[in-house]
């Protein structure tokens, strides 16, 4: 046990040291929020993916693999194509637009894109981001509480406090630089473990055939791509699992990575690195779930399959590294989301609306205070616990529906208007909340429940299109803007 603790503590020390080192690089709010658009290929590539995947990758997705076997690959496919969509359709254009419009945040970009002097777009976007991002951070804290309590035998709340303290500390210290560079370190750790653990598990069980055979004995449906469903129910299962794909263009914590890259030519290499990382990680996570099913048959909480597998298959020190990697996945997302929520409060509300003349030092200080306050709110929410896969689906879905269609259309469709944008954000948010919170699909088995993000995405998309076509466009301004790209 002591070796396991040592490996974990070394990891925490590295994270805090990166935080301290990065803190000296934050001279302006630009530096704190998007690293002054000075990030290189690797930090952008790995940071975008590590921030995206979160505790969901190392707990939620293996848990899904454990419960649904190869059927969980649909989720991996949805996420992989969603990532590719972002790199190919959103990244470069968003980088160009935000640089041209001198935008630091997504609300900033939307306000400038639609010349919204009334600040309505900014106010709505900031509110949505703050609500869903804080909810999202709280999910990461739930994940950190689960993993630390599982590993060290602590009660959930004590584990939560440690996770909260570490994440808050280095985000508060280092801002975007710290977040991006810790993401690189954490991302490499995660992908390494997601390769090694399945290999060890397969070898231990005597081959991939043995793994599937043992999993099939527990539940034959786990060998079926449709989890035993046929016809329309099969399509529903696959579609519901893949629905994550619609969320990618709407995640501010991922989009800010594209905005932070030093120059857009680096995006090609970043895409290559990022996609390689994401493909390996997703398939590795699903395999870990299936191997866990073959070994343990049943678990009280399937989302703990990865730490349990590590502690059963690996020597103590290696299990410590795995626990560190899992924590890394959680932290790399939580810190990014905390930063996005902070930017909404400080840049979008305080700096742009309340005190436009505030000096940079004051803004950085305010950002740090905001990090602390928002993480306390997330911590309070996290005390309730819950199932990570579905908690993430809600927070992810909220952002996906509110911003996904809007970002795509803002970048690619000249005809989008300010009122269309407002309608899209509001209709998407309302739909996702009604769908998920008021139990529209509550009577279905969980694997067939279509997450709110799917209907909400299309409601938002059609709202933007219809309202934009019905309202007046400032054609000259928009034409001027699009002409540059």
């Amino acid at each position, binding site marked *: 046990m002591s070796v396991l603790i040592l490996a974990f503590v070394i990891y925490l020390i590295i994270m805090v040291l990166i935080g*301290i080192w990065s803190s000296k690089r934050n001279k302006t709010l630009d530096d704190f929020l998007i690293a002054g658009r000075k990030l290189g290929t690797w930090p952008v590539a790995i940071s975008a993916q590590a921030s995206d995947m979160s505790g969901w990758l190392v707990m939620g997705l293996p848990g899904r693999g454990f419960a649904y076997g190869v059927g969980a690959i649909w989720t991996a496919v949805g996420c992989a194509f969603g990532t590719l969509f972002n790199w190919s359709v959103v990244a470069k254009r968003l980088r160009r637009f935000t640089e041209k419009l001198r935008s630091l945040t997504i609300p900033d970009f939307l306000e400038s894109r639609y010349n919204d002097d009334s600040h309505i777009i900014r106010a709505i976007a900031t509110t949505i981001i703050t609500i869903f991002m804080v909810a999202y951070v709280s999910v990461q804290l739930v994940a950190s509480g689960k993993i630390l309590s599982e590993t060290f035998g602590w009660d959930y709340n004590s584990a939560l406090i440690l996770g909260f303290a570490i994440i808050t500390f280095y985000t508060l210290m280092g801002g975007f630089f710290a977040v991006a560079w810790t993401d690189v370190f954490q991302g490499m750790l995660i992908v390494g473990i997601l390769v090694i653990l399945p290999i060890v598990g397969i070898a231990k069980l005597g081959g991939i055939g043995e793994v599937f055979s043992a999993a099939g004995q527990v539940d034959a449906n786990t060998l079926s791509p449709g989890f035993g469903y046929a016809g329309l129910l099969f399509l529903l299962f696959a579609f519901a699992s893949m629905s994550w794909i619609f969320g990618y263009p709407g995640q501010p914590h991922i989009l800010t990575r594209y905005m932070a890259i030093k120059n857009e030519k680096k995006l090609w290499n970043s895409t290559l690195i990022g996609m390689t990382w994401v*493909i390996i990680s997703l398939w590795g996570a699903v395999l870990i779930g299936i191997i866990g099913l073959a070994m343990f048959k049943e678990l009280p909480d399937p989302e703990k399959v990865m730490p349990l597998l590590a502690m059963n298959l690996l020597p103590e020190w290696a299990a410590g590294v795995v626990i560190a990697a899992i924590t890394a996945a959680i932290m790399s997302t939580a810190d990014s989301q905390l930063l996005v929520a902070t930017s909404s409060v400080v840049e979008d509300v305080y700096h742009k609306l309340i005190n436009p003349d505030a000096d940079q030092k004051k803004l950085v200080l305010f950002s740090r205070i905001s990090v602390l306050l928002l993480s306390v709110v997330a911590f309070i929410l996290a005390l309730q616990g819950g199932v990570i896969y579905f908690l993430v689906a809600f927070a992810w879905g909220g952002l996906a529906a509110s911003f996904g269609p809007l970002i795509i259309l803002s970048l690619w469709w000249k005809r989008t208007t300010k009122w269309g944008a407002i309608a899209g954000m509001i209709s998407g948010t309302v739909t996702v909340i009604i769908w998920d919170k008021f139990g529209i699909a509550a009577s279905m088995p969980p694997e067939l429940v279509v997450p709110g993000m799917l209907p909400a995405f299309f409601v938002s998309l059609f709202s933007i299109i219809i309202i934009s076509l019905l309202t007046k466009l400032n054609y000259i301004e928009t034409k001027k803007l699009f002409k540059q790209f």
Partner: protein
Amino acid sequence: MKKKVYAMMAIVGVIILILAGIGISIYSYEPGEDKAIEPKEKLYYPVFTEEYKEMTINGLAEKTYSDKVTINGVPSNAILTSVDFQISWDDDKTIGLIIKRGEDTLKIDITYMGETKTKSSIGSGSDTITFDINNVPSVDSIEANNETGAKDLLYEMLSGKNEACFDISVTVETGEPIYRPIKRFLDKGDDFEIKVKYWYYSVELELGSEEDDGEIDIPFETWLFLILPLVCVILATVIYLLWERRRFK
């Protein structure tokens, strides 16, 4: 001022780390309920083989012969199931071809765990007394992580069932074919022989064969589904990157 802020933050960071380290180290590792989860167990099948051993007790019963017999030749991981005592004797001092006179009566009592079984015969005898000691455990299969674990479980079931102790008492009532006034020539008793044959079951473990283990055929669609989406994602990425590179050129 700025340096002071950084120094303060660094100090706060170090304090948090120290507190975290202390917190982790003072908690001892106590697995929760769901920690006791073991890796998936395999099926082992015990195969029992019946074997026997014999031993012989020779004695002379002068009025009464008493002895304690312990059966301890059974291997430690086997189970003693039954013991046969076959007593043979012949009166050596009788007269008469058709009607014998002066025949002795030999009685044998064997006691095991408070139960006594008796046989008696006149003139000669070859009687068998059988004791059932243990039943073979009705274990079809044992679930364990490995062979050692399965053996441990099985041997625990068999523990202490490989020996038994018997009290044997052989009594002779002598008969005199003719009157013998001199005590020295009186019938002294009889020689007897007890053959002890004990049966036991030794056990071997066999790992469940693939068929027995319920191994199932993995459908082709499973393999296909594992690979095909992966190939599609990789292909889509490569196509996009090549297209993007061409565009730049």
